[in-house]
C-alpha cells in the first residue's frame, strides 16, 4: 500500500477495498441424486466424478463472476489491485494509444483532458530545476505530444472550492447560534482525511465536515467545459495529476459517478511521481521537452495561485472572509501560533467588542487524532480546522516525486517544492472574472440548486467489518 497517506494505511485500507482472502460467496452445487461417488483428478488438473456405477462425468470448474462479487456483501466491491491498475500511467498510455488509433481510423474518439494540481507541478519543477512557468509549458508540451487535447490547472476549480467554503462557514457560524453541532467546520479537500473519518469516526464527525467538493472533483464536474467543446461527459477522458495516491480513491467514489452519462467525473488520477515515470519511459528530461501551447479556455494566460500555504489556503481564505462578514474587520496578517508541533497551528482573529474567532491547521494523523478526540468530548476551541492527512500538507504528498540517489535531502526537496509553489503570483478567488461569470452562466447564480449539485457532496459512514475472515494477519 505504498504511497497512501498514513491515515489510510492505519485504517487498514484493505478493510474496505480488498481482494478477499476468504471469499464467502456460497457456490451453488448441482446435486445429482444418488450416492456420492469418487473424485479422480487427471494429470492436466481436470476433475472427474466417478459414480458408484462407474459412470464418469467431468466436473465444471467453480466460477465466481464479477457480478457475483458486486452483489455480495461479504467482500468489498473493488479489489485494490483492480483500482490501482485502472488508474496509473500505464492506463493513460493505453487510453491514449487506443484514442490515436480511433482518430487515425476516422472513428469517434475521446477528448482527453488533463488537470494538473500546482503542488504536483511544483514537484516536477523541483526535480528538473525549472521555474513553475517553464515546468508548466513543458508539461503541457509533453502531454499534448502524447495525444492529450487540453491541459488545465486545478487552481481554477480551487477558486470555487474556496468561495463555497467561505460561504458555507458563514452559514454555519450563523446557524451555530441555535445549533451547536455545526461548528467546528472541518475542511473537506483531503480524501485521506475523508476516508479515515467515514471509516473510523462515522456519524458523529461527518456533520462537521464541509460539504464542498475538492478542486479535483469540481474540475471533474465542470461540464460547462464539455458543452463548450461540443462534447458530453462520456466523450471526455479526464485525467488529473495529483501529489498523492489518496486522490485515486476520491475519484472512484460513487458520489462522483455521473449517472446520467455513465461516466466518472475524473477517470484517472496519476501522481507527479507517475508522470516522472512516464518521462523516464520516454527517456526524456522535462527540461528538454518543447514548450506546448497553453489552454486559455478559462481565461488565464499566465499561472496564478492562492495564498495560504501548499494545501489550498482554506484557513486563510475563510479567516479573511469571516473576519469581514462576521466581525466587520479586514485582516491584514494572519498570526499563526505553532502548538505541539509544526503541523498544528492556530490563528486567533479578534475585533473590539466582537466575539473571537479561532481557527487551526491540523496536518498529519497524530494532529487529526487530537482534533477528533476534542470534538468527541465537546472540547474543541476552534471554529474551523484545515485538516490534511499528510504532515506538512499537500506539497509533501505521498505521490510526489521521490529523491534519487545522492539527490539532496528530504527537507531540502520539500523546501524547494514549497518555494516553487509559493513563487506563483496570487489572485483572490473573489476577483477572478471567469469564475464570477461561470457562477452566472453555468450555475445559474450563487446559492442555486445547480451550485449545490455541482459544487457540494456528501459523506457516508462505512460499517466496520468485524468478520474474522477479513482480518489480514
Amino acid at each position: 500500500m505504498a504511497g497512501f497517506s498514513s491515515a489510510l494505511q492505519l485504517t487498514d485500507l484493505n478493510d474496505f477495498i480488498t481482494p478477499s482472502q476468504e471469499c464467502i460467496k456460497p457456490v451453488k452445487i448441482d446435486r445429482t441424486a444418488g450416492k456420492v461417488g469418487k473424485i479422480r483428478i487427471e494429470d492436466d488438473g481436470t476433475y472427474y466424478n466417478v459414480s458408484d456405477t462407474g459412470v464418469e462425468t467431468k466436473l465444471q470448474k467453480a466460477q465466481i463472476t464479477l457480478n457475483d462479487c458486486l452483489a455480495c456483501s461479504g467482500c468489498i466491491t473493488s479489489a485494490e489491485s483492480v483500482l490501482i491498475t485502472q488508474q496509473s500511467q500505464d492506463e493513460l498510455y493505453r487510453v491514449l494509444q487506443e484514442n490515436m488509433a480511433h482518430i487515425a481510423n476516422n472513428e469517434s474518439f475521446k477528448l482527453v483532458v488533463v488537470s494538473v494540481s500546482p503542488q504536483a507541478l511544483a514537484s516536477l519543477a523541483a526535480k528538473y530545476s525549472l521555474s513553475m512557468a517553464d515546468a508548466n509549458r513543458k508539461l503541457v508540451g509533453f502531454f499534448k505530444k502524447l495525444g492529450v487535447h487540453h491541459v488545465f490547472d486545478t487552481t481554477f476549480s480551487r477558486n470555487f472550492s474556496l468561495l463555497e467554503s467561505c460561504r458555507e462557514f458563514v452559514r454555519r457560524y450563523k446557524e451555530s447560534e441555535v445549533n451547536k453541532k455545526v461548528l467546528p467546520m472541518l475542511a473537506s479537500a483531503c480524501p485521506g482525511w475523508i476516508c479515515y473519518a467515514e471509516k473510523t469516526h462515522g456519524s458523529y464527525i461527518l456533520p462537521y465536515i464541509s460539504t464542498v467538493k475538492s478542486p479535483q472533483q469540481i474540475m471533474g464536474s465542470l461540464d460547462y467545459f464539455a458543452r463548450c467543446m461540443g462534447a458530453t461527459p462520456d466523450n471526455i477522458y479526464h485525467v488529473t495529476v495529483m501529489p498523492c495516491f489518496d486522490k485515486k480513491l476520491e475519484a472512484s467514489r460513487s458520489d462522483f459517478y455521473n449517472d446520467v452519462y455513465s461516466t466518472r467525473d475524473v477517470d484517472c488520477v496519476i501522481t507527479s511521481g507517475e508522470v516522472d515515470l512516464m518521462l523516464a519511459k520516454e527517456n526524456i528530461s522535462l527540461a528538454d521537452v518543447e514548450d506546448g501551447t497553453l489552454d486559455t479556455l478559462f481565461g488565464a494566460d499566465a499561472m496564478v495561485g492562492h495564498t495560504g500555504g501548499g494545501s489550498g489556503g482554506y484557513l486563510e481564505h475563510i479567516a479573511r472572509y469571516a473576519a469581514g462578514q462576521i466581525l466587520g474587520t479586514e485582516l491584514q496578517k494572519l498570526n499563526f501560533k505553532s502548538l505541539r508541533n509544526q503541523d498544528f497551528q492556530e490563528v486567533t482573529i479578534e475585533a473590539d467588542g466582537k466575539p473571537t474567532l479561532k481557527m487551526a491547521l491540523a496536518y498529519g494523523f497524530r494532529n487529526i487524532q487530537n482534533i477528533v478526540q476534542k470534538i468527541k468530548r465537546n472540547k474543541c476551541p476552534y471554529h474551523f480546522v484545515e485538516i490534511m492527512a499528510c504532515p506538512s500538507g499537500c506539497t509533501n504528498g505521498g505521490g510526489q516525486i521521490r529523491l534519487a540517489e545522492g539527490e539532496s535531502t528530504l527537507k531540502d526537496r520539500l523546501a524547494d517544492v514549497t518555494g516553487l509553489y509559493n513563487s506563483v503570483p496570487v489572485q483572490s478567488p473573489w476577483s477572478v472574472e471567469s469564475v464570477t461569470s461561470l457562477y452566472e452562466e453555468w450555475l445559474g447564480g450563487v446559492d442555486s440548486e445547480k451550485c449545490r449539485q455541482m459544487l457540494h457532496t456528501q459523506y457516508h459512514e462505512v460499517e466496520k467489518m468485524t468478520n474474522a475472515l477479513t482480518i489480514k494477519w
Partner: protein
Amino acid sequence: MINMATLSALCTLEGHQDQVWCVAWNPAGTLLASCGSDKTIRIWAEEGSQWVCKSVLTEGHQRTIRTVAWSPCGNYLASASFDATIGIWSRKEGEFECIATLEGHENEVKAVAWASSGNLLATCSRDKSVWIWEVTEDEEFECASVLSAHTQDVKSCTWHPNRDVLASCSYDNTIKLFKEEIDDWSCYATLESHDSTVWKVCFDSEGHRLASVSDDKTVKIWQEYLPGNQEGIPTVGNEGTWKCVCTLSGYHDRTIFDIDWSQVNGRLVTGCGDDGIRIFSEEVGSDKNAPSFSMSASVRKAHEQDVNSVAWNPKVSSLLASCSDDGLVKLWRFKDGE
C-alpha cells in the same frame, strides 16, 4: 560447594474468573495490580501476613485487559485492553477511578507503559502501530505520535529506565527503538536476531543492556555500544549501536512470554508457555561483550498453564509475582545461593 538458589511459593492469590494476563507492582512495592480476560483489574496488598484483594476495578473495559502499568508517581494506573482503548485510573481520592479512556488504536491494544519522566505514555497494538501520548497539566492525554515502523502485531513496549527512549517488540521478529527528534518521534534502531515473535523486552537498571524473549524459546541479551566505544563498534550519529551478546537457549521448552530484570538484585526472571518460571543470573567475572548467564533457580510447574507475566518487586529483592492462564496470581520468594 555452592548452595543452590531457590524459588519457593509464598502464596496463591485467587479471584480472577479467567486467564490472568499481567501483574505489575507499584513503584513503592506495596501494591500488586493484576488484569485478565475477566475484564477486571485487581489490586492486592499485604495485610498482616496475608496478601488480600483490596479492590476490583470493573466497568473500565469491554474486553480482556492485557496489560496494566503504574505511573512513576504511583498515583495512576493505565490499562491496555483488547477493546482498543486504554484506561487511565487515578487513586488521588483513595479509591481507583477511571478518569480517562484513550481511543485511537484500530484494534486490540497489547501493552501500555509510562516513561520515567512522568508525562509520556506509550501504547502498542495489533494494528502494528506504537502510539506516544503526552499528559498535559490538566490530566488530558494527547497523541504525540503514531509510529508505524513494525510490519506486524506489536506485542509489547517498554521505556528506557532514565531516557525518553522506547523499545517495542513484535510478531515481525524485531525489536525497535524510538526517540523524539525535533518535531516528531521516529524509529532509530531495529534489533534483529530472534527467529520468531519477540514477546517482551526489558532494560537493566542502567539502561545499557536489554533482554528479550521470544517464541523461538530463547532469551537474548543485547549490549549498547556508545559512540567512541573502546571495542571499536561503529555507531551512527550520537546514538549507540545495540548488539546481541548472549543467547540463552535450551532452557525453555515452549514460547517465553515475559521477562523482567530486577532493578535491585540484577537477576532475570522468565515466564514460559511450558508453565515454568526461571531465574537467570550473570556469572561472576562475566565479560561485558560476551556475558554468561546461568539458570540459578526454576520451578518447572509454577502454574497449571502458561505463565503470562512475571514481575520482580521493585523494593523487596526476594519477592516476585507471576500470573497464568490458570487464573491464578502467585507470589514467590527467591533465596540466593551461597
